[in-house]
């Protein structure tokens, strides 16, 4: 598959320029045409900042201090300016549909705000387009709902509106920052199916940020595991989920409940906590929590290297010694449940 989006050596800084803190350091990944790519990790690992950096919407006080961002256009990967790709190539779905939809605009106007600004569509033309888009994302009564206000809709419907708004500009990549976290479990499932359907129908690529491994398993083809502002392992989802090549990924997977996990048995959690952006250890940042750590790990330069005998890439030097049988994650590998979104 040919690459569509490539992030290389992304460095994000906060704080004074003289003594910056780097919540994201040298993160890189590549997303192919039509691929769903997952970005997982604990809270604070830098997933959201990475995603926002892709479209240049970093929060106040965070700046990009390095890295290349490229998008495929006319058959070649080219670095892009944000103004070129916003609403034309890259779209974004936010976590909180309540706060990400302007409360003072009607749903229909909101959905087509992008193309109206971008291509100068007339309001009238935009109206019928808005109804089409709302129908595409499965709104039950698109005509009536186009005339409603965001606050009149349920959380699930609001998230559908958010997705329609992002789709309105016909992006080739959809960035999704935990788009289901704010929703009920049943509604989460509907939104995941919707994203899966849209992706198939439109041949869209998706970058999906989440801390929920189950969601990655269901939706994504490939995954990057982030820890303390770095990617520690990346690979195909089936591989990473059955034969993780980094102790952090393995720990995350062990702490994930499956259908077979008895309710009363506590999940195996990784001891300790993730270091904050300001106090990260030298060398492998996972070392203080790692059961396999050696003295050498503290002097390690961060490199995502190919793993012998595995298609994944890992930042762990002991990957060859981790060995052991593959994790029994068969329960996680069930395909996306049937039914339409």
């Amino acid at each position, binding site marked *: 598959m040919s690459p569509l989006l490539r992030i290389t050596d992304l460095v994000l800084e906060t704080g004074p320029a003289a003594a910056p803190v780097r919540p994201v350091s040298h993160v890189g990944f590549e997303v192919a045409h039509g691929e769903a790519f997952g970005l997982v990790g604990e809270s604070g690992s830098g997933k959201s900042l990475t995603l*926002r950096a892709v*479209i240049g*919407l970093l*929060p*106040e006080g965070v700046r990009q201090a390095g890295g290349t961002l490229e998008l495929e256009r006319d058959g070649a990967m080219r670095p892009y300016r944000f*103004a070129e790709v*916003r*609403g*034309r190539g*890259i*779209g*974004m779905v*936010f976590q*909180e549909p309540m*706060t*990400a*939809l*302007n*409360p*003072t*605009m*009607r749903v229909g106007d909101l959905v087509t*705000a*992008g*193309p*109206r*600004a*971008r291509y100068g569509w007339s309001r009238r033309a935009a109206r019928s387009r808005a109804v089409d888009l709302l129908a595409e994302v499965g709104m039950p009564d698109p005509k*009536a709902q186009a*005339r*409603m*206000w965001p*606050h009149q809709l349920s959380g699930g419907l609001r998230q559908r509106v*958010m997705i329609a*708004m*992002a789709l*309105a*500009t016909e992006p080739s990549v959809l*960035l999704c920052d935990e788009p289901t976290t704010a929703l009920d479990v049943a509604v989460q499932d509907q939104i995941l199916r919707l994203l899966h359907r849209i992706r198939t129908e439109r041949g869209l690529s998706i970058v999906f940020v989440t801390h929920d491994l189950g969601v990655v398993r269901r939706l994504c083809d490939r995954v990057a595991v982030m820890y303390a502002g770095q990617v520690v392992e990346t690979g195909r989802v089936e591989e990473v989920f059955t034969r993780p090549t980094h102790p952090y990924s393995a720990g995350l997977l062990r702490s994930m409940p499956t259908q077979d996990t008895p309710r009363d048995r506590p999940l195996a959690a990784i001891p300790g906590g993730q270091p904050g952006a300001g106090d990260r250890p030298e060398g492998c940042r996972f070392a203080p929590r790692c059961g396999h750590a050696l003295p050498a790990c503290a002097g390690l330069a961060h490199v995502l290297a190919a793993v012998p005998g595995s298609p994944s890439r890992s930042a762990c030097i002991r990957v060859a010694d981790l060995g052991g049988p593959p994790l029994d994650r068969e329960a996680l590998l069930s395909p996306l449940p049937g039914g339409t979104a």
Partner: protein
Amino acid sequence: MIHSGRFGFVGRRLLQAIPLTLVLLLLVFAMLKVVPGDPAMQVAGPRASAATLQAIRVQLGLDQPVWEQFLHYLGRIATGDFGTTATGSTKVGTLIASGAPVTLVLLAVSTVFTVLIAGATALLAARRPDGLVDRMINVMAAFGVGVPTFWLGIVLLAGVALPTGAFPIGGWGDTPATVLRAAVLPALALSVSVAPVLMASLRSGIVEARRSEYHAAAQAAGVRGWKLTRGFVLRNAAVPPVSLLAALTTLLLSGAVVVESTFGLPGLGLSLTQAAQNRDFNVIQGLTLVFSLAVVVVNLVGDVLVAFLDPRVMV
């Protein structure tokens, strides 16, 4: 369905204004009842006989029960009859009719100035929150709120009107052009104390909107430039200032009373000042009614405007 929501909201607000207006009328009516002294004695003079006083009481309707007097008062107000001034020379209604346009123009020009000043400074200040410009505007705003309106009026007369000759030294005009020119300086004096309050509210609204997720979502969708500012910043930021502006009308009205005296403008404020000096109760009562009704109307308009800007307030 949504439209009926908005119009239903306006209708309900109009209905709510009716009892409020009645209470206002009752209070203004009661004003005269608590004024010390016998009104009949005031008309007839201190040496009138008991019989004369009684005749005057009957003539004024003072022998009737209070609620009947109130109904009578309502009837008079409905026909625009506010009584006569203390000297008996002029009808209070005529006084109001001649003063109202002056005060209305003054308030209108001042509102325009207030909105322009507040809008421009808020946009400037919000460009870089806590930056140098923001802080300077903040200091100026604090000064604007604190400076006495009458003092500012005198400074404008002495510092601008006198040396430039571009504006009259007080007084009003008789053509639209001269009226507007006469209104500029007093309106400015009036705006300076009100605009900072509006500016602060607008500024924080703009900063908040720019930090919001819906602003980021709009940018992600490719909305930018003026469309972004208008649709995803100003529209949201305008909601609190609009209701605030309605609430500030009382401040503008009391400011108008001061400014009209300073600049010698023949408006309602000047009439009120003079009536207060002459203890002319009919005039005071009439003007109080007009001022408080104006506040009711402006707040009604403000509520409706807010509802059109932010649909969530319609409950």
